[in-house]
């Protein structure tokens, strides 16, 4: 298990820090197709990207950002704790090890199609070095109006006090869009990832904000597959988590034993079924929206 992890401290810092909201970030895979596009967009949003990494391209630069062969090399010049990982899946494990070995504490793992075995090994490696992985197969994490590490568009997100945790990328945007339009801004929106193994699961995501007073509510976007939602409900019961929570579960009408786009979205028997998740939430009186568009009104009613 992870030790207590202060994600806001790492991501944006404390108000008295000279680099508050401006924490340095390294992008692994910066010269790739995806990496380069999103490096530009993250920068536009205000993320302080100080270095990039692409093996064998050390010494080059990308739009003024120096590129190194490894995070190890980059860390000789910059004191970075955050990495955005955009490498192809087959290089994922080595990218994680390079980052963790170089003192990175928060690894936002974008790649899809990472083998389970590599994800598990990455996770063990990170945990034993007190580093935190978000993902893989995540859209990333955004602190609206401050910075974002990931591939999410910025328009749907507005600054505020709700936390959005989602197993699906596009639904995280969709739900945040509906929230923002209803005047409910977000303190943080974080993608758990669509894979079977998540570096930060729903429980750990809740743990990130459970004692933050400025977070006044949580929207959890689940989907079929696995038992993350059921475990979350047990955690909520056990810890007496008291902030208002609204849930949504995608895939009520999905057939069994078919992988619905995400590697992790598959139902076997009752294991992973939407009914199981919805009845878990209902058991602890957490309202489950039928459609993403319903979420804001349900949340507003709870907050009254």
């Amino acid at each position, binding site marked *: 298990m992870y030790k207590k992890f202060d994600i806001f401290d790492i991501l944006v810092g404390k108000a008295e820090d000279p680099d508050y909201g401006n924490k340095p970030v390294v992008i692994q895979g910066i010269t790739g197709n*995806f990496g380069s596009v999103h490096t530009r967009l993250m920068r536009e949003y205000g993320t302080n990207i100080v270095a990039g990494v692409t093996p064998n391209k050390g010494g080059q630069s990308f739009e003024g950002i120096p590129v190194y062969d490894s995070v190890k090399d980059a860390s000789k010049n910059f004191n970075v704790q955050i990495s955005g990982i955009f490498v192809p899946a087959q290089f994922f494990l080595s990218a994680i090890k390079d980052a963790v070995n170089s003192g990175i504490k928060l690894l936002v793992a974008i790649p*899809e199609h990472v083998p389970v075995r590599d994800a598990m090994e990455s996770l063990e490696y990170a945990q034993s070095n007190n580093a935190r992985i978000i993902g893989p197969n995540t859209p990333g994490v955004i602190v609206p109006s401050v910075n974002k590490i990931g591939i999410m568009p910025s328009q749907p997100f507005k600054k505020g006090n709700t936390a959005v945790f989602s197993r699906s990328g596009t639904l995280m945007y969709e739900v945040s869009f509906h929230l923002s339009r209803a005047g409910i801004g977000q303190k943080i929106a974080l993608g758990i990832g669509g894979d079977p193994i998540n570096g930060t699961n729903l429980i750990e995501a809740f743990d990130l904000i459970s004692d933050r007073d400025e977070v006044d509510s949580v929207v959890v976007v689940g989907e079929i597959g696995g038992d993350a939602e059921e475990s979350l409900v047990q955690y909520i019961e056990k810890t007496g988590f008291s902030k208002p929570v609204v849930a949504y579960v995608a895939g009520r009408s999905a057939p069994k034993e078919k992988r619905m786009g995400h590697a992790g979205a598959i139902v076997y028997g009752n294991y992973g079924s939407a009914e199981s998740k919805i009845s878990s939430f209902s058991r602890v009186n957490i309202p489950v929206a039928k*459609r993403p568009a319903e979420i804001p009104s349900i949340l507003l009613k709870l907050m009254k």
Partner: protein
Amino acid sequence: MKLLEYQGKELFTEYEIAIPKSYLAKNHSELSQVADKLRLPVVLKSQLTVGGRGKAGAILKCMKKEELEPKFTELLNKEVKGEYPSVILIEEAVDIYKELYLSLFLNRGKRTYSLISSAEGGMDIESVENKVIQDISITGLTQAIAESIGKNLGISGVTAESFSNIVIKLAKLVREKEAELAEINPVAILRDGTCLALDAKIIIDDNSIFRHPELTKYIQISELQEQAEKSGFSFVELDGNIAIIGNGAGLVMSTLDIVNDAGGKPGAFLDFGGRATTETIYKALEVISKLKKVKAILVNLFGGIVRTDLVAQAILDAYKDGMISVPIYARISGAESDKAKQMLSNSNAKLFDTVEEAISSLVQYIGLSK
């Protein structure tokens, strides 16, 4: 990737897990080639990926040679949950003293592997009683741990030795072939006390296939599926007549649910993933155009980065090229949506501001067109 039983058993043979003597036959000429070698009685097992074969009558026992041909024909023509077999496994029946249950699976919540064992095997795991679930390390499964698992099941002597051997070999298989699940249900204890795998259910991590060229021969996908995957899409064919296209697995699943709630019947799930360009939309429509049962297409695209006028252009191109003729109901959020609406105004496609509006209009159309 879920392996067929015989494929799983090929892996068992590779890992020296005992299985009954068996033959494969795809058609009658192959059956007649093996018929003389068989020692009756035999069990004919339809090779399907769906579960519940026993209950569905897709496993038949043959006591006499005359039964072979008609039962083989029966199985080849038998559909189970929409699936027909392409091959039948013919296994020599064994003399079973007792049946056990054994499986190893990726426990997602705990982020480790778990082992389930039970002294009562043979039925669906959800109805298996007295099962023991324990976390194990598939890299560090020792002889002592394997033996203790057998002990808990109340077996001893030759049987205990044979069973713990299977546990260790199964863990090795899971580790080396990167399986998410390996289930033997049942493990049969024979009259001589040794153990044998009577069934095999193995699911390989799709994302690890690039490391396992030896497993690619087991990949079984439809032509359409293959075409979709080559373009980087996730595609699942469903029973209904409405094709649903979007960017992101969660969003498309969510759309499926809303369509279903509104009384529509989804016929295809297509997630074209990360970036939506004119080309990806066009290719997605191309895949859908091959599904003759589709009466209407719903596009739900959450943009931000995507330009909706480019999506509109792809739709216009698909109509112009005669690739599709059915109406498209689209909800596309993103830049330039007024321009996109204007572009589509004289086509068979309609743009809506919300997915709910698009769906209610679509379902009404499907209702009228019946």
